[in-house]
């Protein structure tokens, strides 16, 4: 397995979806290729960063802007007539 194939199988490997022989080839490649170890580590960091980057946002916007609430209520009133 070369670096290109390694990257191709990265998502399946991280998801635990690679068949055993492919997973073994994947792991052999990492043991020989330090750049690809870094790549795997930073790929995992990327997943953690993206998944948690929006958490604070949910509480930041918990309160509805008054003008948006008014616009929605007005649109609903207009739609009923």
């Amino acid at each position, binding site marked *: 397995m070369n670096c290109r194939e390694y990257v191709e199988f990265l998502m399946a490997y991280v998801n635990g979806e690679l068949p055993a022989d492919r997973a073994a080839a994947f792991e052999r490649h990492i043991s020989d290729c330090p750049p690809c170890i870094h790549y795997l580590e*930073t790929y995992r960091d990327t997943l953690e960063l993206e998944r*948690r980057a929006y958490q604070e946002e949910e509480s930041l916007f918990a309160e509805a802007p008054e003008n948006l609430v008014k616009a*929605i209520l007005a649109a609903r009133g207009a739609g009923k007539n």
Partner: protein
Amino acid sequence: MPEGTGSDQPAGESLLARLLAGEEAAFEQMVRAHAGRLLGVARRYLSSEDDARDAVQEAFLAAFRGLDGFQEGARLSTWLHRITVNAALMKLRSRRRRPEEPIEDLLPQFDDRGVSTRFPRQWIGHAHELLERREIREAVRASIDRLPPSYRVVLLLRDIEGWDTHETAGLLDLTPGTVKVRLHRARLALRTLLAARFEVEKS
């Protein structure tokens, strides 16, 4: 399924019954409880603030029209979340006029032998350390915003909303295979964007 936060009581027979009865105050209560959070959701998909607000407004009107279809036992917040994502996606489709930037420039490059042509360097910290800094969380969101829209949408639905491949494929009218390929490329491209910011300087 995504789990919303805030006002996350079960849809509450009382509020639902009042909504179904067409009680004006119940509609306002629903809007006040959820519009802020849903605006945050719409902003993930739509860069224009006006478009994000329009999507939330359309979502509430659609929700009100579709109240009969609301399934008992479901959470109102989850149901509204899904309707908002749909409204945002529709808005995004109507806005997508220009061809998007190709994602290839953000994917890893290899030589003829399939060997990486760029040695990835370590990052200034691991994710759990980086996430403690607010400006970094903002930078991650800004990097996701830079992904080409057809890839960004798949990344948001799969990784942020937590929808599965088949749900995402159905919503975007894509094959499951295409969803997998786009998610894979979107994550690689995001890694490239984050690496540009987080890799340690060359010594």
